[in-house]
């Protein structure tokens, strides 16, 4: 037992978390005693203990689970053990529940846990739609409702879309560039384990006194300054989710720059790698801003600072500038990896090279650059200086140009191809349609006088879901189906996949399409009840959304049953050229026993005799173990 408690794992984490609570209690007690809280009864404050615990307990959990063990050795100057890769690979399902340094295991951990949060976030959406089916508060009260949409959006953004892209890329990106792992495997593991922590905090806020955080995912100050303690859960959770994003992005950038296979020049990289390169740049530069915005709120809340206290010279609009300087780029963080997935799928499934490969890469970088210059389009009606609207509207409109280049290039790739219309491809085509619609409504929002009418209405809710569901989530479904054989070694059920696609495509449009009209007609967002004239459309939307929920269940059913009992997958079911398809499904523990050499572009379909990567002949079996690191493919 004692050994179990000393070894990294859930037992140790449990003990450490208790210690975390004790530490928080002691610390706040000490501080309050020494800083003028005169009477003994004031030495202990539930809110203070809870606030400090929100930081201390998650950290204690991470230490307990073993996220920092190696670095503690390093810090103490003990001889760091040579890497024996004992943390590498998964041999049973239990290996997915420990700190694992294998990028493939981490990729699966990321993906599965993010889909758990999709389930929860989607379920919350169902509750919201149940409330909104009729006006009045017949189902939940206003406070609960505000909590529901705040947690809905926060979970789906910070714990589903962003991490699931990181998870898919974690799995396939090293394989695609011919690397044995990510550059910093231990950092990679840590960045995964920060996510359940953030998720537990967000969901845990429902049990906080005063209810879940209820100020929307945007948490505008000064409302969030004075909200009940649930708001602190959000601010802290965002720190953990943000730290996780930054660590992963650093890892991707370093991996892409320093660990490409011989011959893999930047312009021979698959576009998924380009997309994650661009996304990681966004993350590294932008994410610190949301961390800071929540620092400000935390300091205001916990210590009475005056960042957003207008009576003491604070600046309320500053919150929005800092917040959107992250959160606009964040919407591209939630879209660019999807663009990468679509490029992979369309090239393979249309059996043609990607049209305009270089422009595809450059347009990603253009979106990154422009993405930093448009944040105030979320503030057209915020009361900021009027002139700022002009440059921001122009850059916002112009960002449709690089996005358009991508859309048109995909269409040109389809042209005269040999289209394999299986599930991943259907989702890719569905994505092209719904995302174009969502993008166009975005461009309309860039037109200031129009935005002045519809800002903060259901028109925005429609835009959000067309780009996030019709855009990001469609690409995620496409990507999960596409790499499912590679990740699990099994094939999914094609028939159920098609059912899932058609149900999703239809119900997405039925659910979110009518919201445009609601918004134009004057229905505000973030309300738990509404004027009687909006009843019919809302009821329709609610019914459609339940259909959307059921269609998602088809997906979960397909994935779970196929994972457990689907037919075995061959290494390359789609006849893809990129490197991940040249190894077994699932890939061997160190990806490549011989580093591949890249000799051509990634999408040379239809070019006679073209190959992307070659492997040296297999080493003699006797030497397989020892010689693995010596054998090298001949350099070109």
């Amino acid at each position: 037992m004692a050994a179990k408690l000393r070894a990294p794992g859930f037992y140790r984490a449990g003990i450490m978390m208790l210690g975390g609570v004790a530490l928080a209690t002691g610390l706040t007690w000490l501080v309050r005693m020494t800083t003028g809280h005169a009477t003994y009864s004031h030495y202990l404050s539930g809110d203070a203990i809870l606030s400090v615990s929100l930081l201390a307990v998650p950290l204690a959990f991470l230490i307990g689970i073993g996220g920092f063990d190696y670095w503690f050795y390093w810090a103490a100057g003990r001889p760091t053990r040579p890497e024996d890769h004992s943390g590498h690979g998964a041999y049973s399902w239990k290996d997915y529940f420990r700190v694992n340094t294998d990028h493939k295991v981490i990729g699966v951990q990321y993906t599965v846990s993010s889909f758990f949060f999709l389930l929860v976030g989607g379920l919350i959406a169902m509750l919201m739609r149940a409330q909104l089916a009729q006006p009045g508060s017949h189902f939940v009260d206003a406070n609960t409702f505000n909590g529901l949409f705040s947690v809905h959006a926060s979970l789906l953004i910070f714990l589903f879309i962003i991490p699931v892209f990181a998870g898919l890329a974690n799995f396939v990106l090293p394989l695609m560039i011919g690397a044995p792992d990510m550059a910093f495997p231990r950092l990679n593991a840590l960045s995964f384990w920060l996510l359940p922590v953030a998720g537990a905090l967000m969901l845990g806020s429902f049990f906080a006194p005063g209810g879940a955080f209820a100020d929307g995912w945007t948490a505008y100050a000064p409302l969030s300054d004075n909200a009940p303690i649930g708001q602190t859960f959000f601010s802290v959770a965002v720190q953990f989710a943000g730290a996780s994003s930054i660590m992963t992005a650093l890892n991707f950038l370093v991996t892409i720059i320093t660990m490409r296979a011989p011959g893999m020049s930047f312009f021979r990289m698959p576009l998924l790698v380009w997309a994650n390169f661009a996304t990681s740049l966004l993350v590294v530069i932008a994410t610190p801003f949301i961390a800071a915005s929540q620092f400000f709120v935390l300091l205001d809340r916990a210590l009475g600072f005056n960042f957003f206290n207008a009576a003491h010279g604070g600046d309320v609009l500053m919150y929005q500038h800092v917040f959107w300087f992250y959160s606009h780029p964040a919407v591209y963080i939630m879209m660019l990896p999807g663009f990468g997935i679509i490029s992979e799928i369309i090239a393979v499934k249309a059996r043609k090279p990607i049209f305009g490969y270089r422009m595809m890469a450059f347009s990603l970088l253009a979106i990154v650059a422009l993405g930093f210059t448009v944040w105030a389009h979320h503030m057209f009606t915020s009361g900021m200086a009027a002139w700022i609207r002009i440059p921001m509207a122009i850059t916002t409109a112009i960002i449709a140009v690089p996005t358009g280049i991508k859309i048109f290039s995909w269409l040109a790739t389809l042209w005269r191809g040999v289209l394999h219309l299986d599930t991943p491809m259907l989702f890719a085509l569905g994505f092209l349609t719904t995302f174009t619609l969502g993008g166009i409504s975005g461009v309309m929002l860039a037109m200031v006088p129009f935005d002045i009418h519809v800002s903060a209405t259901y028109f925005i809710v429609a835009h959000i879901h067309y780009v996030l569901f019709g855009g990001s989530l469609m690409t995620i479904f496409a990507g999960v189906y596409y790499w499912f054989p590679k990740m699990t070694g099994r094939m999914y059920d094609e028939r159920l996949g098609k059912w899932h696609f058609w149900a999703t495509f239809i119900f997405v449009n039925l659910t979110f399409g009518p919201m445009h009209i609601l918004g134009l007609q004057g229905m505000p967002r973030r309300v738990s009840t509404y004027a009687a004239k909006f009843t019919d459309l809302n009821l329709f939307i609610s019914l459609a959304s339940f259909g959307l929920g059921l269609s998602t269940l088809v997906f979960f059913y397909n994935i779970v049953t196929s994972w457990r009992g689907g037919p075995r997958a061959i290494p390359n079911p789609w006849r893809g050229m990129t490197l991940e398809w040249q190894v077994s499904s699932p890939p061997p523990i160190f990806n490549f026993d011989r580093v591949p050499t890249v000799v051509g572009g990634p999408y040379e379909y239809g070019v006679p005799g073209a190959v992307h990567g070659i492997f040296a002949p297999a080493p003699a079996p006797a030497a397989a173990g020892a010689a693995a690191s010596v054998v090298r493919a001949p350099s070109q």
Partner: protein
Amino acid sequence: MTSRRSLALASVAAVVAVAIAVAISFWIHWFPAQATTQAQNTDRLYHVLVLASIPIFVLVVTVILYSVWQFRMKPGEELKDGPPIHGNTRLEVFWTAIPTVLLLGIVGYSFVVLRNNEKKPAREIQIGVTAQQFAWTYQYPPSVTGGAPLNSTQLYVPKGESVEFSLRSKDVIHAFWIPAFRVQEDVVPGITTHWRATPIRLGSYPVVCNLLCGLGHSLMRSTVHVVTPAQFHAWITSQQSAAASGAGGLSTTGAATG
């Protein structure tokens, strides 16, 4: 079917789709009552945007459907690849340049609308708006009342006169939105924000708080009454006398009439 004939067919289908979509866009009742000149301008802008978007969207969908129709894999083609086309510079320049021009055109137009909507007219009345969780109050300064300033929970504006609202908040951020006027702006603690509109249609329209401001956000509503200038002045006078009698008859006119 030859590929030329099917292309022609697809083009015709696309044109028909555009026509139908345009027709539907005129048929749908997009907006609530159009109660200001600003609303007229903004609605026109919206219709232009819809007309510009339809062909783009139809183009994308047509290409997808056409490809699915013509280029889907047929039995026996399992191992076939498409032609290795890597790009076409002319085409790429084209689809970069055309959207750029189009976009700059519509932002330009939107700026014209914005300027018209926000232009300060020669004559204008001022009304103050104060937001607090979860109610609106309105201040009519002496320049409007012609006497003592008036505080009211009701919003009356005269038809045909430009009104500038000055928005102040006592606590958190709210937003002052009149959907029938097509204008809104946040009400931010610490600063005063403004918007203006010229009502042109008599009637009563909802006033909506359009920024999440806490528990009562969904219910923070009020009504704006657009009335004739004569009715407006009559209302002001009646309010003033009511206020005066409520305050103990300090004002002489109030005492005389009340």
